[in-house]
């Protein structure tokens, strides 16, 4: 936490000093006011000196006004600084994540990165806001309050020694008991959410299986658990305010009693009693804030640690120092004895992978789940770096190319089509902002997407919701393919991109792609044999190695694994 604060508050050190100074002034003014009160009573009211009351009162007003102005300026700069800190940290994380390769992203997981970029920063920022606006003044108030109380009357200050620990322990006890329960309650809330979510997504199944009652019971259990925990937590919290007031009131009575004795014996003027009461309130308030801080800071520190972890991670894939010169070749991909293993893994995911694919050619990769197909295609755009061997695009080692140049050459269609919020057009133009509508329509034609886009009232301007949830899986897939086509890359990578399509669309799409892609090379990962049997080169992967390579006919002859795959998909047809 300290490291994070140090780094990202440094640019604002002037503001920080200003805020600290202002808080100091506030604290002093706040401490000064009660003694003015005391003076008004001792010298004015008791003696019946109206003139004195007027003049001191006037002065007091001036002090109050100054205090008001100072605190407004303080809040201004305090808020500004805390929010700027949050903004800068968010920005730093976001920019950092942009430099990450898939390896780092997977290490954290996208959801975790999102939380770190948003919630965690917010947590730290909240404590900072709190601190800059008031907590920092707590020590000053506490110490100042004690000094002032001592000045008013030393023996009476003994009360502070008793009351402060009682207060700290009580507040600490309540909060430390409630906080873990709050976490449990959050889990219970999540559980209720989960049950409802499942109910909503499975509504047809639930009704089809006549399980409505069962589901109602499940919900009731979750609802009950939540209610019970909420009851416990909130009952504990309901204790907090009465307990605090009780302590404040008890100390008031104590001050009055012991103070009364002192006043009566003439050891202390009566006005000091009121001042003393105010000081003790201020001290207790400061203690309370400090206690809250003790609860807040550790939680924020956890968030800060999570943020720091992201900021300290260095990307494993970087641009070369001196990029190699561009070659004259276009549309070539070559793997030379490529190996890939995850860090720390004993077995490589891929090994001894070699092949070349040229312009107009299609290289298909087939194999069972977990055979390394997706990993293989992810190496081409350097989402990961191969741990052995070389990958060349257009004859140049991809590690010697600037990544922007490499990516410029690749059109990638991932397994799970991912669309961005915006419109259909903005998604299609993702790889080339200059593309005109004709090119978009052409790409849609090839991707078999024209028909459904045509049917939409807004056409290309049809809005896409975040995650593309407002179009079907097949439509999402076709838009992702069209997006890659608009880019006009030299290398197409389709990672099992046809699976969400029905057979008709699949075959039409493949025919159109074949016509369209003439000077680029295509790498396709597939599950269905029918999708890839016309490929120029089929690579059969098993456990990360090539167990067969060739055309469909060749492989039917030579590769038992390939035959097995084909039979598994076609034998039922034979049985027909």
């Amino acid at each position, binding site marked *: 936490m300290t490291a994070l604060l140090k780094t990202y508050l440094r640019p604002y050190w002037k503001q920080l000093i200003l805020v600290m100074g202002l808080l100091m002034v506030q604290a002093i003014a706040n401490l000064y006011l009660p003694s003015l009160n005391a003076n*008004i009573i001792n010298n004015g009211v008791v003696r*019946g*000196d109206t003139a004195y009351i007027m003049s001191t009162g006037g002065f007091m007003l001036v002090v109050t006004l100054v205090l*008001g102005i100072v605190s407004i300026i303080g*809040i201004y700069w305090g808020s500004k600084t805390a929010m700027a800190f949050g*903004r800068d940290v968010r*920005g730093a994380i976001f920019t950092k*994540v942009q430099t990450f390769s898939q390896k780092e992203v997977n290490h954290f997981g996208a959801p975790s990165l*999102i939380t770190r970029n*948003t919630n965690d920063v917010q947590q730290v920022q909240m404590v900072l*806001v*709190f601190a800059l606006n008031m907590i920092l003044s707590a020590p000053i108030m506490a110490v100042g309050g004690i000094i002032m109380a001592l000045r008013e009357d030393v023996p009476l200050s003994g009360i502070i020694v008793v009351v402060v620990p009682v207060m700290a322990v009580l507040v600490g006890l309540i909060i430390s008991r409630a906080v873990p329960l709050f976490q449990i309650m959050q889990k219970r809330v999540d559980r*209720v959410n*989960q049950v*409802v*979510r499942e109910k*909503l*997504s499975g509504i*047809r*199944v639930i*009704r*089809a*299986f006549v*399980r409505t009652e069962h589901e*109602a019971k499940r919900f009731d259990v979750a609802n009950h658990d939540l*209610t019970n925990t*909420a*009851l416990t937590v*909130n009952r504990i919290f309901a*204790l907090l305010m*009465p*307990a605090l*007031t009780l302590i404040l*009131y008890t100390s008031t009575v104590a001050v009055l*009693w012991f103070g*009364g004795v002192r*006043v009566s014996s003439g050891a202390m003027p*009566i006005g000091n009693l009121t001042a003393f009461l105010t000081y003790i*309130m201020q001290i207790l308030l400061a203690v*309370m804030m400090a206690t*809250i801080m003790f609860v807040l800071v550790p939680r924020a520190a956890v968030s800060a640690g999570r943020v720091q972890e992201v900021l300290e991670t260095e990307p494993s894939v970087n641009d070369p120092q001196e990029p190699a010169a561009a070659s004259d070749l276009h549309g070539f991909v070559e793997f030379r004895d490529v190996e890939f293993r995850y860090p720390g893994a004993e077995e490589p995911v891929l090994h001894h992978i070699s092949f070349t694919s040229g312009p107009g050619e299609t290289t298909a990769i087939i194999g069972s789940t977990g055979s390394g197909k997706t990993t293989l295609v992810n190496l081409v*755009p350097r989402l990961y770096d191969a741990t052995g061997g070389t990958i060349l695009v257009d004859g140049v080692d991809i590690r010697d190319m600037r*990544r*922007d140049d490499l*990516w410029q050459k690749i059109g*990638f269609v991932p397994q799970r089509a*991912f669309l*961005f*919020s915006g419109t259909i057009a903005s998604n299609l133009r*993702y*790889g080339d902002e200059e593309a005109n509508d004709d090119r978009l329509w052409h790409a849609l034609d090839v991707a078999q997407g024209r028909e459904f886009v045509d049917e939409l009232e807004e056409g290309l301007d049809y809005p896409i919701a975040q*995650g593309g949830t407002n179009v079907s899986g097949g439509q999402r897939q076709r838009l992702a393919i069209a*997006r890659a086509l608009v880019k006009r890359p030299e290398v197409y990578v389709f990672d099992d991109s046809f699976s969400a399509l029905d*057979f*008709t669309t699949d*075959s039409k799409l493949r025919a159109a792609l074949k016509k369209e892609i003439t000077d680029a090379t295509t790498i396709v990962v597939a*599950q269905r044999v029918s999708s890839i049997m016309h490929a120029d080169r089929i690579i059969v992967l098993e456990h990360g190695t090539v167990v067969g390579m060739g055309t469909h006919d060749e492989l039917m002859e030579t590769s038992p694994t390939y035959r097995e795959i*084909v039979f598994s998909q*076609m034998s039922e047809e034979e*049985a027909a």
Partner: protein
Amino acid sequence: MSDSKNTAPAPARPPMAGGPGGGRPGGGGGMFGGGRHGMAPVAKAKDFTGSAKRLAGTLRPEMVKIVVVMLLAVVSVAFAVAGPKVMSNATNVLFQGVIGKALPKGATTAQVIAGLNAKGDVASKDLAAMIRTMNVTPGVGADFALFGKELLLLGALYALSALFLWGQGYIMVGVAQRTVYEMRKHVDEKLSRLPLRYYDDHPRGDILSRVTNDIDNIANSLQQSATQLITAVFTIVGVLLMMFIISPLLAAISVLVIPLALLSTVQIAKRSQKQFALQWEQTGDLNGHVEEMHTGHSIVKIFGRQKEAIEVFDERNAKLYDSSFKAQFISGIIQPVMNFLGNLNYVGIAVIGGVKVATGTMTLGDVLAFIQYSRQFTQPITQTASIANVLQSAVASAERVFELLDEPEEQPDTATPLTLAEPQGHVTFEHVDFSYDPASPLIEDMSLDARPGQTVAIVGPTGAGKTTLVNLLMRFYEIDAGRITVDGIDTRDLTRDDLRRTFGMVLQDAWLFSGTIRDNIAYGIDDVSEERLLEASRAAYVDHFVRTLTDGYDTMLDDDASNVSQGEKQLLTIARAFLADPEILILDEATSSVDTRTEVLIQKAMRRLMKNRTSFVIAHRLSTIRDADIILVMNHGRIVEQGTHEELLEAKGFYYDLYHSQFVESFDEVSDRLDAAV
């Protein structure tokens, strides 16, 4: 049925944004309760009074408790308010002692006064006037017995006030939680009575957020804000009352501050609300962007869009900074302003009160008490203003919940249902008309006769047809005309539950809930014997892979069931159907993302399941289609053709084209080659 398991998440709620809106340490109150105020933008209710009344109506079962809470609040506030007055009495006793001690012992009060007046200067005359009103015995100090008694009373009052405050909070927590528990329960029950149409027409995230976020909002508002509001209002009334009793003149001066305080609070709150709403919205915008960019990280990179991603981020980040800073700052102004007003009031009281004490028209203790009251006065005003906002949003939430509760329900089951004693699985459609939207009829005059054990294949390029079929067979939707029968009985003459028990459903987007594999397979029935469970699992080829899992049948399936592959999930739903042993099946053949070996298992298991059962199959495989007794050809969700494979080929219609484009090219070719290869 939806195409993915991704439930739309509830509208992104920005996490705890901003800070303690009205929760600055104004005398120790509102630290926790006040913290959340002013953060959420205040959603306006459409019919505020109506919804507020109805919300109040839901509290009726708790009426007795609420009355008790009110009484406790009154007592607690009354005691707290009485405190300063008792304190003033104590101070007076003390003060009299101080004065008395200073006077010469033995002299009478009258002598002292006369002596002072004789001095002739103004101060002495004032002092004389003051002493005249006091119960001073010259030369005698404070009466500590009396002082102690007063303090004891004070302590008792305060202790009781705190006790009642606690009691009030404690009971109110129960009231709020029980009310909200019932509300959740009602909503859940409502969900089971809503027609499927409602679910198809409303985003899941929206329904979810009504059940969870809105109800949570109501709970928090009820238990925190409501008690605070009650206390605040009573305090204002009580304090005002005491102030007027002590000194009408001073009270009048203090009351002058109220409009000032209210005006400034409302003005500032209005402005900060606007910024908080902006902050809320912009947090959502920014988080949305972060979510999108981090999730689509590789696409952003490969399409070379990092620069733009960062640009958009920076822009939104700057906006968020601006609004959150302003929200924080503006809401932070309230406290200093209130402090200033409070001190202004204080000086006024001190000056006038001082004069009054000096002239003997008021005791010192009363002035001190008055000062205490005026201090207690501004805070509840600020609180009331901010709580008003919170309650407003609670009513808006309640309204959204009520809207859901008011949705029209499913047509009830017939009052005199027939029963299927021994279902055979004979399904007919007789002149059925159906449409989701009357403007575009989907099915017109459809008739179909599926005899027990027959297979009906549904074929077509789009997926929309299968949902319709499920909807009609299971009576999720009502048909517009004609009738659907099972074993000759109109499905509307059966209870929905009875009807649905005769059906089994195995869909590709397999629906599993979080729980063990055992619970998921046994979903159709309670009390399943281990033997039957294993039998069904073996029949569905589930047994083998389940045994490879460390916990076997007790393996927990998590939210996305990521520990089990897509194909295995479908096998689990087949096992579920085996166990339920229905007469009629609705099946969905696997097309995608299932690895080849699992696909073979699914195919075999399905064949086995379909044996001797009437089956409606969403078919992708040529063999299934060719073997079917009836083929329904669907396009754009409509049934366009119906017949056997041979009949349809002969008709040379849509099926003919489909068959040739889809299967002949790829599959026949493969089959030929396979023949050659084998």
